[in-house]
Protein backbone atom coordinates (compact mmCIF):
# COMPACT_ATOMS: atom_id res chain seq x y z
CA UNK A 1 0.00 0.00 0.00
CA UNK A 2 1.47 3.29 -1.07
CA UNK A 3 1.58 6.19 1.35
CA UNK A 4 0.08 9.39 -0.04
CA UNK A 5 1.51 12.54 1.43
CA UNK A 6 -0.92 15.23 2.68
CA UNK A 7 0.42 17.75 0.17
CA UNK A 8 -0.77 15.64 -2.73
CA UNK A 9 -4.33 15.44 -1.37
CA UNK A 10 -6.74 17.57 -3.41
CA UNK A 11 -9.37 18.92 -1.01
CA UNK A 12 -11.19 21.01 -3.65
CA UNK A 13 -13.96 18.52 -4.57
CA UNK A 14 -14.70 17.85 -0.87
CA UNK A 15 -14.85 21.55 -0.07
CA UNK A 16 -17.16 22.26 -3.00
CA UNK A 17 -19.47 19.45 -1.93
CA UNK A 18 -19.37 20.68 1.64
CA UNK A 19 -18.78 24.44 1.75
CA UNK A 20 -19.03 24.42 5.57
CA UNK A 21 -16.23 21.90 6.00
CA UNK A 22 -12.53 22.13 6.77
CA UNK A 23 -9.56 19.85 6.26
CA UNK A 24 -7.19 19.31 9.17
CA UNK A 25 -4.05 17.30 9.74
CA UNK A 26 -3.85 14.46 12.27
CA UNK A 27 -2.12 16.94 14.56
CA UNK A 28 -5.26 19.09 14.56
CA UNK A 29 -3.87 21.92 12.38
CA UNK A 30 -6.36 23.39 9.88
CA UNK A 31 -5.10 23.04 6.27
CA UNK A 32 -7.94 24.42 4.15
CA UNK A 33 -11.53 25.58 4.56
CA UNK A 34 -14.75 25.67 2.52
CA UNK A 35 -16.21 28.87 1.00
CA UNK A 36 -19.11 29.30 3.45
CA UNK A 37 -16.93 28.71 6.49
CA UNK A 38 -14.73 31.47 5.09
CA UNK A 39 -17.71 33.82 5.41
CA UNK A 40 -17.88 33.05 9.12
CA UNK A 41 -14.19 33.66 9.74
CA UNK A 42 -11.59 34.80 7.17
CA UNK A 43 -9.38 31.92 5.90
CA UNK A 44 -6.23 33.56 7.24
CA UNK A 45 -7.73 33.50 10.75
CA UNK A 46 -8.29 29.76 10.54
CA UNK A 47 -5.61 28.13 8.40
CA UNK A 48 -2.58 27.10 10.40
CA UNK A 49 -4.43 27.13 13.69
CA UNK A 50 -5.56 24.12 15.70
CA UNK A 51 -9.23 23.13 15.35
CA UNK A 52 -9.53 23.13 19.14
CA UNK A 53 -7.94 26.58 19.29
CA UNK A 54 -10.65 28.01 17.04
CA UNK A 55 -13.60 26.01 18.33
CA UNK A 56 -14.62 24.55 21.64
CA UNK A 57 -15.49 20.98 20.72
CA UNK A 58 -17.75 18.71 22.72
CA UNK A 59 -19.07 15.23 21.97
CA UNK A 60 -21.23 12.89 24.02
CA UNK A 61 -18.15 11.01 25.18
CA UNK A 62 -18.09 8.41 22.46
CA UNK A 63 -15.62 9.70 19.87
CA UNK A 64 -13.03 7.39 18.28
CA UNK A 65 -9.33 7.82 17.63
CA UNK A 66 -6.37 9.65 19.13
CA UNK A 67 -6.97 12.77 17.10
CA UNK A 68 -7.52 16.06 19.05
CA UNK A 69 -11.00 16.08 17.48
CA UNK A 70 -13.14 12.98 18.23
CA UNK A 71 -13.86 11.15 14.99
CA UNK A 72 -17.00 9.48 13.64
CA UNK A 73 -19.38 10.92 16.18
CA UNK A 74 -21.71 13.86 16.55
CA UNK A 75 -19.89 17.01 17.64
CA UNK A 76 -21.12 20.25 19.18
CA UNK A 77 -18.88 23.22 18.39
CA UNK A 78 -18.74 26.91 19.22
CA UNK A 79 -16.32 29.59 18.10
CA UNK A 80 -14.09 30.54 20.97
CA UNK A 81 -13.94 34.22 19.96
CA UNK A 82 -16.39 36.66 18.38
CA UNK A 83 -19.97 35.58 17.66
CA UNK A 84 -20.08 32.12 19.20
CA UNK A 85 -22.52 30.49 16.67
CA UNK A 86 -23.34 26.97 17.80
CA UNK A 87 -22.47 24.41 15.14
CA UNK A 88 -23.07 20.72 14.72
CA UNK A 89 -20.46 18.62 13.05
CA UNK A 90 -18.76 15.36 12.41
CA UNK A 91 -15.12 14.58 11.66
CA UNK A 92 -13.70 11.60 9.79
CA UNK A 93 -10.28 10.64 8.63
CA UNK A 94 -9.61 10.30 4.91
CA UNK A 95 -7.78 6.99 4.68
CA UNK A 96 -4.24 7.05 3.38
CA UNK A 97 -3.88 10.81 3.30
CA UNK A 98 -2.95 11.74 6.86
CA UNK A 99 -5.68 14.36 6.80
CA UNK A 100 -9.19 14.53 8.18
CA UNK A 101 -12.34 16.34 7.21
CA UNK A 102 -14.64 18.15 9.61
CA UNK A 103 -18.04 18.97 8.18
CA UNK A 104 -20.16 21.58 9.95
CA UNK A 105 -23.78 22.64 9.95
CA UNK A 106 -25.74 25.37 11.69
CA UNK A 107 -28.53 23.26 13.12
CA UNK A 108 -30.96 25.47 15.00
CA UNK A 109 -28.64 28.48 14.90
CA UNK A 110 -29.32 28.83 11.18
CA UNK A 111 -31.74 31.75 11.52
CA UNK A 112 -29.26 33.82 13.52
CA UNK A 113 -26.34 32.73 11.35
CA UNK A 114 -27.97 33.90 8.13
CA UNK A 115 -28.38 37.33 9.68
CA UNK A 116 -24.99 37.42 11.44
CA UNK A 117 -22.97 36.41 8.38
CA UNK A 118 -25.25 37.63 5.57
CA UNK A 119 -25.53 34.21 4.03
CA UNK A 120 -27.46 33.56 0.82
CA UNK A 121 -28.76 30.51 -1.01
CA UNK A 122 -25.44 30.14 -2.79
CA UNK A 123 -23.66 29.56 0.51
CA UNK A 124 -25.40 26.27 1.12
CA UNK A 125 -24.73 22.99 -0.59
CA UNK A 126 -27.30 22.22 -3.26
CA UNK A 127 -28.29 19.16 -1.26
CA UNK A 128 -28.67 21.12 1.98
CA UNK A 129 -32.24 21.64 3.28
CA UNK A 130 -31.25 24.93 4.92
CA UNK A 131 -33.08 27.12 2.42
CA UNK A 132 -36.30 25.10 2.68
CA UNK A 133 -35.94 25.33 6.44
CA UNK A 134 -35.56 29.12 6.27
CA UNK A 135 -38.68 29.37 4.13
CA UNK A 136 -40.59 27.36 6.71
CA UNK A 137 -39.30 29.42 9.61
CA UNK A 138 -40.16 32.69 7.87
CA UNK A 139 -43.64 31.49 6.89
CA UNK A 140 -44.30 30.07 10.32
CA UNK A 141 -43.18 33.29 12.04
CA UNK A 142 -45.41 35.42 9.82
CA UNK A 143 -48.43 33.20 10.43
CA UNK A 144 -47.68 33.07 14.14
CA UNK A 145 -47.48 36.85 14.35
CA UNK A 146 -50.84 37.18 12.58
CA UNK A 147 -52.36 34.57 14.89
CA UNK A 148 -51.00 36.39 17.90
CA UNK A 149 -52.54 39.67 16.80
CA UNK A 150 -55.83 37.98 15.99
CA UNK A 151 -55.80 36.34 19.41
CA UNK A 152 -55.20 39.66 21.11
CA UNK A 153 -58.07 41.25 19.18
CA UNK A 154 -60.44 38.39 19.95
CA UNK A 155 -59.42 38.35 23.58
CA UNK A 156 -60.00 42.10 23.86
CA UNK A 157 -63.40 41.75 22.19
CA UNK A 158 -64.29 38.87 24.50
CA UNK A 159 -63.37 40.82 27.63
CA UNK A 160 -65.38 43.82 26.39
CA UNK A 161 -68.38 41.62 25.54
CA UNK A 162 -68.25 39.95 28.95
CA UNK A 163 -67.93 43.30 30.68
CA UNK A 164 -70.95 44.51 28.72
CA UNK A 165 -72.95 41.40 29.54
CA UNK A 166 -72.36 42.02 33.25
CA UNK A 167 -73.05 45.74 33.23
CA UNK A 168 -76.21 47.76 33.57
CA UNK A 169 -75.85 50.26 30.74
CA UNK A 170 -77.79 53.12 32.33
CA UNK A 171 -75.93 53.28 35.64
CA UNK A 172 -72.68 51.48 34.84
CA UNK A 173 -73.32 49.25 37.88
CA UNK A 174 -73.18 45.47 37.65
CA UNK A 175 -76.37 43.68 36.64
CA UNK A 176 -78.21 40.71 38.09
CA UNK A 177 -76.13 38.21 36.11
CA UNK A 178 -72.91 39.63 37.48
CA UNK A 179 -74.38 39.60 40.99
CA UNK A 180 -75.40 35.92 40.67
CA UNK A 181 -71.91 35.12 39.48
CA UNK A 182 -70.11 36.97 42.29
CA UNK A 183 -72.49 35.64 44.93
CA UNK A 184 -71.90 32.08 43.76
CA UNK A 185 -68.13 32.54 43.88
CA UNK A 186 -68.18 34.12 47.34
CA UNK A 187 -70.35 31.33 48.71
CA UNK A 188 -68.06 28.73 47.18
CA UNK A 189 -64.95 30.28 48.70
CA UNK A 190 -66.82 30.71 52.02
CA UNK A 191 -65.89 34.34 52.64
CA UNK A 192 -68.09 36.12 55.15
CA UNK A 193 -70.16 38.95 53.65
CA UNK A 194 -73.28 41.03 54.01
CA UNK A 195 -76.07 41.26 51.44
CA UNK A 196 -78.10 44.46 51.35
CA UNK A 197 -81.27 44.76 49.32
CA UNK A 198 -82.25 48.36 48.53
CA UNK A 199 -85.57 49.35 47.05
CA UNK A 200 -86.10 53.00 46.14
CA UNK A 201 -89.15 54.74 47.59
CA UNK A 202 -91.16 57.35 45.65
CA UNK A 203 -89.14 56.62 42.51
CA UNK A 204 -92.30 55.75 40.57
CA UNK A 205 -93.77 59.18 41.28
CA UNK A 206 -90.62 60.87 39.92
CA UNK A 207 -91.01 58.84 36.74
CA UNK A 208 -94.72 59.54 36.54
CA UNK A 209 -94.61 63.28 37.19
CA UNK A 210 -91.27 64.34 35.66
CA UNK A 211 -90.77 61.63 33.04
CA UNK A 212 -88.25 58.89 32.39
CA UNK A 213 -85.36 61.26 31.78
CA UNK A 214 -85.76 62.53 35.33
CA UNK A 215 -85.95 58.93 36.55
CA UNK A 216 -82.72 58.14 34.71
CA UNK A 217 -80.97 61.11 36.28
CA UNK A 218 -82.07 59.91 39.72
CA UNK A 219 -80.85 56.37 39.05
CA UNK A 220 -77.44 57.66 37.99
CA UNK A 221 -77.19 59.74 41.15
CA UNK A 222 -78.20 56.70 43.21
CA UNK A 223 -75.47 54.65 41.51
CA UNK A 224 -72.92 57.33 42.36
CA UNK A 225 -73.94 57.32 46.03
CA UNK A 226 -73.90 53.51 46.26
CA UNK A 227 -70.44 53.27 44.68
CA UNK A 228 -69.28 55.91 47.11
CA UNK A 229 -70.61 53.86 50.04
CA UNK A 230 -68.83 50.67 48.99
CA UNK A 231 -65.22 49.59 48.65
CA UNK A 232 -63.51 48.32 45.51
CA UNK A 233 -63.98 44.65 46.40
CA UNK A 234 -67.66 45.10 47.25
CA UNK A 235 -70.37 44.79 44.61
CA UNK A 236 -73.22 47.07 43.67
CA UNK A 237 -75.74 45.63 41.24
CA UNK A 238 -78.93 47.06 39.79
CA UNK A 239 -81.18 44.04 39.79
CA UNK A 240 -84.51 45.64 38.85
CA UNK A 241 -85.96 48.99 37.75
CA UNK A 242 -85.39 50.63 41.13
CA UNK A 243 -83.88 47.72 43.07
CA UNK A 244 -80.26 47.29 44.03
CA UNK A 245 -78.25 44.63 45.77
CA UNK A 246 -75.05 45.51 47.59
CA UNK A 247 -72.59 42.86 48.69
CA UNK A 248 -70.10 43.84 51.36
CA UNK A 249 -67.06 41.58 51.25
CA UNK A 250 -65.85 40.49 54.71
CA UNK A 251 -68.08 42.99 56.48
CA UNK A 252 -70.67 41.44 58.81
CA UNK A 253 -70.72 43.75 61.84
CA UNK A 254 -74.46 44.26 62.33
CA UNK A 255 -74.30 47.61 64.07
CA UNK A 256 -71.99 49.12 61.49
CA UNK A 257 -74.02 47.64 58.64
CA UNK A 258 -77.16 49.32 59.97
CA UNK A 259 -75.25 52.60 60.30
CA UNK A 260 -74.06 52.28 56.71
CA UNK A 261 -77.58 51.51 55.50
CA UNK A 262 -79.04 54.49 57.35
CA UNK A 263 -76.35 56.75 55.93
CA UNK A 264 -77.16 55.51 52.43
CA UNK A 265 -80.85 56.26 52.95
CA UNK A 266 -80.19 59.76 54.22
CA UNK A 267 -77.91 60.46 51.26
CA UNK A 268 -80.58 59.11 48.87
CA UNK A 269 -83.00 61.61 50.35
CA UNK A 270 -80.88 64.53 49.22
CA UNK A 271 -82.70 66.39 46.43
CA UNK A 272 -81.47 65.63 42.91
CA UNK A 273 -81.59 68.66 40.61
CA UNK A 274 -83.40 68.05 37.32
CA UNK A 275 -84.04 70.92 34.88
CA UNK A 276 -85.57 73.66 37.04
CA UNK A 277 -86.82 71.40 39.80
CA UNK A 278 -85.62 68.82 42.31
CA UNK A 279 -86.40 65.09 42.48
CA UNK A 280 -86.92 63.63 45.90
CA UNK A 281 -86.78 59.97 46.68
CA UNK A 282 -85.84 57.71 49.56
CA UNK A 283 -85.08 54.05 50.02
CA UNK A 284 -85.84 50.99 52.13
CA UNK A 285 -83.20 48.45 52.95
CA UNK A 286 -83.12 44.85 54.16
CA UNK A 287 -79.85 43.29 55.30
CA UNK A 288 -78.62 39.79 55.97
CA UNK A 289 -75.15 38.38 56.62
CA UNK A 290 -73.53 34.99 56.12
CA UNK A 291 -73.11 34.46 59.88
CA UNK A 292 -76.84 33.69 60.20
CA UNK A 293 -76.40 30.46 58.29
CA UNK A 294 -74.55 27.23 58.66
CA UNK A 295 -74.62 26.71 54.90
CA UNK A 296 -75.64 29.96 53.25
CA UNK A 297 -77.22 29.82 49.79
CA UNK A 298 -77.75 32.63 47.30
CA UNK A 299 -81.45 31.97 47.12
CA UNK A 300 -81.88 31.83 50.90
CA UNK A 301 -79.89 34.99 51.55
CA UNK A 302 -81.68 37.03 48.89
CA UNK A 303 -84.99 35.78 50.24
CA UNK A 304 -84.11 36.75 53.81
CA UNK A 305 -82.82 40.17 52.79
CA UNK A 306 -86.16 40.54 50.99
CA UNK A 307 -88.07 39.70 54.15
CA UNK A 308 -86.07 42.30 56.07
CA UNK A 309 -86.67 44.83 53.29
CA UNK A 310 -90.34 44.02 53.51
CA UNK A 311 -90.30 44.90 57.20
CA UNK A 312 -88.68 48.23 56.36
CA UNK A 313 -91.47 48.98 53.90
CA UNK A 314 -94.06 47.90 56.45
CA UNK A 315 -92.55 50.14 59.11
CA UNK A 316 -93.20 53.15 56.93
CA UNK A 317 -90.34 53.13 54.39
CA UNK A 318 -87.01 54.98 54.55
CA UNK A 319 -85.91 52.34 57.05
CA UNK A 320 -83.12 49.81 57.28
CA UNK A 321 -83.88 46.42 58.84
CA UNK A 322 -81.54 43.62 59.74
CA UNK A 323 -82.81 40.14 59.06
CA UNK A 324 -83.92 38.43 62.27
CA UNK A 325 -84.65 34.71 61.99
CA UNK A 326 -86.98 34.80 65.00
CA UNK A 327 -89.14 37.56 63.54
CA UNK A 328 -88.98 36.89 59.84
CA UNK A 329 -89.24 33.14 59.75
CA UNK A 330 -91.75 32.55 62.55
CA UNK A 331 -94.34 35.25 61.95
CA UNK A 332 -96.22 35.87 58.79
CA UNK A 333 -96.16 39.46 57.86
CA UNK A 334 -99.46 40.43 56.33
CA UNK A 335 -99.43 41.96 52.91
CA UNK A 336 -98.10 45.48 53.14
CA UNK A 337 -100.25 48.36 51.98
CA UNK A 338 -98.09 48.58 48.85
CA UNK A 339 -97.07 45.76 46.57
CA UNK A 340 -93.87 43.94 47.52
CA UNK A 341 -90.59 44.75 45.94
CA UNK A 342 -90.76 41.68 43.74
CA UNK A 343 -94.28 42.35 42.48
CA UNK A 344 -93.35 45.81 41.41
CA UNK A 345 -90.91 44.78 38.72
Amino acid sequence: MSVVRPVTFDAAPFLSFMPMSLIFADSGVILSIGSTLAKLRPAEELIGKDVTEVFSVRDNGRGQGNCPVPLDTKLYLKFRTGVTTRLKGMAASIPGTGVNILNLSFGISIVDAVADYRLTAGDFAHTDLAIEMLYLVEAKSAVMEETKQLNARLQGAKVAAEEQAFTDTLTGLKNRRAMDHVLKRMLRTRVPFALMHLDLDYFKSVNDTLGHAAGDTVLQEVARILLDETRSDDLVARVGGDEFILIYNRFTDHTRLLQTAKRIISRLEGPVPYLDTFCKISGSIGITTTDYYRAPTAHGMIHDADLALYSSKYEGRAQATLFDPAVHHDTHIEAAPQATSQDKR
Partner: protein
Amino acid sequence: MHGMINRAIQCFMRDTYGADTWEKVAEQADLGFDNFEAMLSYPDQITLDVLGRAARQLHKPVETFLEDLGTYLVSHPNVEAIRRLLRFGGENFTEFLFSLNELEGRAQLALPDLEVPTLKVEYAEDGRFRLSCSSSMPGFGYAMVGVMRAMADDYGALVFLEHQGWMDSGEEIITINLLEAAYTEGRSFELSERIGGEL
Protein backbone atom coordinates in the same frame (compact mmCIF):
# COMPACT_ATOMS: atom_id res chain seq x y z
CA MET B 1 -46.79 30.44 31.48
CA HIS B 2 -47.41 29.77 27.82
CA GLY B 3 -50.95 28.66 26.97
CA MET B 4 -49.49 25.52 25.42
CA ILE B 5 -48.27 24.31 28.83
CA ASN B 6 -51.51 25.22 30.57
CA ARG B 7 -53.44 23.55 27.78
CA ALA B 8 -51.34 20.40 28.23
CA ILE B 9 -52.24 20.29 31.92
CA GLN B 10 -55.91 20.70 31.06
CA CYS B 11 -55.87 18.02 28.32
CA PHE B 12 -54.02 15.61 30.59
CA MET B 13 -56.73 15.93 33.24
CA ARG B 14 -59.55 15.77 30.70
CA ASP B 15 -58.17 12.72 28.88
CA THR B 16 -57.10 10.87 32.02
CA TYR B 17 -59.64 11.73 34.69
CA GLY B 18 -62.58 13.06 32.67
CA ALA B 19 -64.06 16.44 31.85
CA ASP B 20 -65.78 16.64 35.26
CA THR B 21 -62.48 16.56 37.11
CA TRP B 22 -61.08 19.34 34.96
CA GLU B 23 -64.21 21.46 35.45
CA LYS B 24 -63.96 21.05 39.23
CA VAL B 25 -60.30 22.08 39.23
CA ALA B 26 -61.00 25.06 36.96
CA GLU B 27 -63.76 26.16 39.29
CA GLN B 28 -61.69 25.71 42.45
CA ALA B 29 -58.77 27.60 40.94
CA ASP B 30 -61.26 30.35 40.15
CA LEU B 31 -60.06 30.65 36.57
CA GLY B 32 -63.17 32.45 35.38
CA PHE B 33 -63.03 30.50 32.10
CA ASP B 34 -63.52 26.90 31.08
CA ASN B 35 -60.59 26.31 28.74
CA PHE B 36 -57.02 27.47 28.40
CA GLU B 37 -56.18 28.81 24.95
CA ALA B 38 -52.98 27.32 23.59
CA MET B 39 -51.90 30.53 21.87
CA LEU B 40 -52.41 32.91 24.78
CA SER B 41 -50.09 33.54 27.68
CA TYR B 42 -51.19 33.36 31.32
CA PRO B 43 -49.65 34.63 34.58
CA ASP B 44 -47.46 31.95 36.21
CA GLN B 45 -49.54 32.03 39.38
CA ILE B 46 -52.53 30.63 37.46
CA THR B 47 -50.51 27.56 36.44
CA LEU B 48 -49.29 27.04 40.00
CA ASP B 49 -52.85 27.37 41.34
CA VAL B 50 -54.17 24.86 38.81
CA LEU B 51 -51.40 22.37 39.64
CA GLY B 52 -52.04 22.72 43.37
CA ARG B 53 -55.80 22.30 43.01
CA ALA B 54 -55.43 19.39 40.61
CA ALA B 55 -53.10 17.52 42.95
CA ARG B 56 -55.49 18.04 45.84
CA GLN B 57 -58.49 17.00 43.76
CA LEU B 58 -56.73 13.79 42.75
CA HIS B 59 -55.30 13.15 46.23
CA LYS B 60 -51.71 12.91 45.07
CA PRO B 61 -48.57 14.99 45.59
CA VAL B 62 -47.87 17.64 42.94
CA GLU B 63 -44.65 15.75 42.06
CA THR B 64 -46.62 12.61 41.19
CA PHE B 65 -49.13 14.65 39.24
CA LEU B 66 -46.32 16.19 37.17
CA GLU B 67 -44.72 12.82 36.57
CA ASP B 68 -48.04 11.43 35.32
CA LEU B 69 -48.40 14.50 33.13
CA GLY B 70 -44.99 13.78 31.59
CA THR B 71 -45.97 10.17 30.90
CA TYR B 72 -49.23 11.34 29.33
CA LEU B 73 -47.41 13.73 26.99
CA VAL B 74 -45.52 10.94 25.28
CA SER B 75 -47.92 8.03 25.57
CA HIS B 76 -51.47 9.25 25.01
CA PRO B 77 -52.83 8.90 21.45
CA ASN B 78 -54.22 12.46 21.58
CA VAL B 79 -50.71 13.91 21.71
CA GLU B 80 -49.01 11.37 19.44
CA ALA B 81 -47.07 14.10 17.62
CA ILE B 82 -44.88 14.77 20.67
CA ARG B 83 -43.88 11.13 20.91
CA ARG B 84 -43.11 11.03 17.19
CA LEU B 85 -40.84 14.07 17.43
CA LEU B 86 -39.03 12.74 20.48
CA ARG B 87 -38.57 9.33 18.87
CA PHE B 88 -37.16 11.10 15.85
CA GLY B 89 -34.48 12.52 18.15
CA GLY B 90 -32.64 9.22 18.37
CA GLU B 91 -32.73 5.66 17.16
CA ASN B 92 -32.19 4.26 20.64
CA PHE B 93 -32.73 5.43 24.20
CA THR B 94 -29.18 6.73 24.62
CA GLU B 95 -29.46 8.85 21.48
CA PHE B 96 -32.84 10.06 22.70
CA LEU B 97 -31.28 11.19 25.99
CA PHE B 98 -28.59 13.16 24.18
CA SER B 99 -31.18 14.71 21.88
CA LEU B 100 -32.72 16.36 24.96
CA ASN B 101 -29.73 18.71 24.89
CA GLU B 102 -31.22 20.21 21.76
CA LEU B 103 -34.85 20.21 22.83
CA GLU B 104 -34.91 23.80 24.08
CA GLY B 105 -33.47 25.25 20.87
CA ARG B 106 -35.69 23.17 18.65
CA ALA B 107 -38.82 24.07 20.58
CA GLN B 108 -37.91 27.74 20.48
CA LEU B 109 -37.45 27.58 16.75
CA ALA B 110 -41.09 26.54 16.54
CA LEU B 111 -42.54 28.63 19.39
CA PRO B 112 -40.22 31.43 20.47
CA ASP B 113 -42.43 32.38 23.45
CA LEU B 114 -42.59 28.87 24.89
CA GLU B 115 -40.58 28.62 28.10
CA VAL B 116 -38.97 25.22 27.62
CA PRO B 117 -36.69 24.12 30.43
CA THR B 118 -32.97 24.07 29.74
CA LEU B 119 -32.03 20.39 29.73
CA LYS B 120 -28.50 19.12 29.93
CA VAL B 121 -27.73 15.44 29.61
CA GLU B 122 -24.28 14.09 30.41
CA TYR B 123 -22.91 10.61 30.48
CA ALA B 124 -21.67 9.89 33.99
CA GLU B 125 -20.25 6.33 34.13
CA ASP B 126 -21.28 2.67 34.06
CA GLY B 127 -24.40 3.23 31.98
CA ARG B 128 -25.49 6.13 34.15
CA PHE B 129 -26.56 9.50 32.83
CA ARG B 130 -27.28 12.75 34.59
CA LEU B 131 -29.96 15.19 33.49
CA SER B 132 -30.08 18.70 34.89
CA CYS B 133 -33.20 20.71 34.30
CA SER B 134 -33.57 24.46 34.87
CA SER B 135 -37.03 25.81 34.43
CA SER B 136 -39.16 28.78 35.39
CA MET B 137 -41.68 26.18 36.52
CA PRO B 138 -40.50 24.41 39.67
CA GLY B 139 -41.03 20.67 39.52
CA PHE B 140 -40.63 20.42 35.76
CA GLY B 141 -37.98 17.77 36.45
CA TYR B 142 -40.72 15.45 37.71
CA ALA B 143 -42.54 15.83 34.41
CA MET B 144 -39.25 14.93 32.71
CA VAL B 145 -39.05 11.76 34.84
CA GLY B 146 -42.47 10.81 33.48
CA VAL B 147 -41.40 11.64 29.91
CA MET B 148 -38.21 9.57 30.17
CA ARG B 149 -39.96 6.63 31.81
CA ALA B 150 -42.54 6.50 29.02
CA MET B 151 -39.88 6.95 26.34
CA ALA B 152 -37.83 4.11 27.83
CA ASP B 153 -40.90 1.88 27.47
CA ASP B 154 -41.28 3.17 23.95
CA TYR B 155 -37.72 2.17 23.06
CA GLY B 156 -37.98 -1.04 25.02
CA ALA B 157 -35.16 0.02 27.37
CA LEU B 158 -34.95 -0.93 31.04
CA VAL B 159 -34.08 2.13 33.10
CA PHE B 160 -34.01 3.22 36.70
CA LEU B 161 -34.82 6.90 37.15
CA GLU B 162 -34.28 8.94 40.26
CA HIS B 163 -35.13 12.57 40.93
CA GLN B 164 -32.30 13.84 43.12
CA GLY B 165 -34.08 17.00 44.21
CA TRP B 166 -33.14 20.61 43.79
CA MET B 167 -29.74 22.24 43.78
CA ASP B 168 -29.28 25.64 45.41
CA SER B 169 -29.36 27.22 41.97
CA GLY B 170 -32.89 25.89 41.39
CA GLU B 171 -31.72 23.19 38.99
CA GLU B 172 -33.32 19.80 39.32
CA ILE B 173 -31.11 16.75 38.93
CA ILE B 174 -32.27 13.39 37.67
CA THR B 175 -30.09 10.32 37.36
CA ILE B 176 -30.87 7.80 34.67
CA ASN B 177 -29.50 4.31 35.07
CA LEU B 178 -29.73 2.47 31.78
CA LEU B 179 -29.77 -1.17 32.85
CA GLU B 180 -30.54 -2.67 29.48
CA ALA B 181 -30.94 -0.84 26.18
CA ALA B 182 -33.04 -3.54 24.50
CA TYR B 183 -35.01 -5.16 27.30
CA THR B 184 -38.23 -5.48 25.31
CA GLU B 185 -39.05 -4.88 21.68
CA GLY B 186 -40.52 -1.44 22.31
CA ARG B 187 -43.13 0.25 20.20
CA SER B 188 -42.85 0.59 16.45
CA PHE B 189 -42.12 4.02 15.12
CA GLU B 190 -42.64 5.99 11.94
CA LEU B 191 -41.91 9.71 11.90
CA SER B 192 -44.59 10.44 9.38
CA GLU B 193 -48.14 10.09 10.50
CA ARG B 194 -48.98 9.45 6.85
CA ILE B 195 -46.91 6.29 6.77
CA GLY B 196 -49.00 5.32 9.73
CA GLY B 197 -47.29 4.84 13.05
CA GLU B 198 -49.47 2.70 15.26
CA LEU B 199 -52.15 4.54 17.15
